[in-house]
């Protein structure tokens, strides 16, 4: 189809263009949403109420693995989109599935990390620090989980319909979402984990 034209397929209709813009604006709202969570965390991070601090419970190795998993998944998502723009459905699906697996691996590691924290005696009920930590990480984790479900729905549609203006727009949007979650994770990694290790 339109793979020879200069504009990518996902921008080919006015409705698509509006939907993509709408999603960018939604991402703007998500930035404010996560900023609020970060603000809450920064205000409460010292409120440990005699319980453990982040430094006491931190598993930097696991966190690093999570980070690499998510960074790589963001890369493979980018490759899937690249394949889509080459109009190569098969390559696109392969990279999408790899992305999904990496995302699932991230979630597995994160849940493990949560279980570890609970064993170490930090839960949402322990202290304000615990509440803020689990809420910030949990909100990000829920976003990743929703992203995984969303990508699965899109894989089904891609298999059934191929690369069309509608499926390419949908896929472009989910890729934006996925990269965005990676951006949030970079800030979590730096301002929660590395900062925690420093304190």
């Amino acid at each position, binding site marked *: 189809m339109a793979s020879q034209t*200069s*504009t*990518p397929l996902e*921008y080919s209709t006015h409705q698509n*263009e509006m939907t*993509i*813009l709408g999603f*960018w*604006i939604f*991402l*703007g*709202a998500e*930035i*404010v949403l*996560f*900023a*609020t969570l*970060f*603000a*809450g965390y*920064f*205000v409460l991070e010292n409120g440990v109420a005699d319980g453990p601090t982040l430094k006491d419970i931190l598993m*930097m190795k696991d966190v*690093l693995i999570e*980070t*690499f998993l998510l*960074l*790589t998944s*963001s*890369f493979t*998502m*980018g*490759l899937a989109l*690249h394949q889509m*723009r*080459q109009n190569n459905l098969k390559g696109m699906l392969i990279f999408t599935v790899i992305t999904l697996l990496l995302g699932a691996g991230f979630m597995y590691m994160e849940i493990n990390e949560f279980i570890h924290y609970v064993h170490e005696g930090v839960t949402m009920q322990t202290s304000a620090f615990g509440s803020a930590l689990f809420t910030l990480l949990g909100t990000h984790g829920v976003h990743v989980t929703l992203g995984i479900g969303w990508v699965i729905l899109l894989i089904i549609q891609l298999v059934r319909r191929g690369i069309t203006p509608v499926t390419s727009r949908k896929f472009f949007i989910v*890729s*934006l979402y996925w*990269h*965005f979650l*990676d*951006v949030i994770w*970079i*800030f979590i*990694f*730096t*301002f929660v984990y*590395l*900062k925690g*290790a*420093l*304190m």
Partner: protein
Amino acid sequence: MKKQSMFPLNHVLGFVLSIALTVGAVFIVYQTDFSASVKMNIIGTLAIFQALIQLIMFMHITEGKSGGINIINIAYAIFLAIVVVAGSIWVLTTGHAAM
């Protein structure tokens, strides 16, 4: 808009950079002798760079007819994020509120 090449150079470059920046941040935290606040400033800057890489190389923020609007939108959102985070910290941890 120029046609994309077969080899996703941008993506590979972005990926390599983001891994390097992550490893760099960890290195600074664990292997250097700077004071904690200097370390925070450095890794904070690295995080911002990495976010920009994602935005430009992976998310193609400037693409499409609404590229200008996108940039204004994200810049505004970042302004709001700074207001919310810095404002909350300032208001809740200074003056008589400081406990």
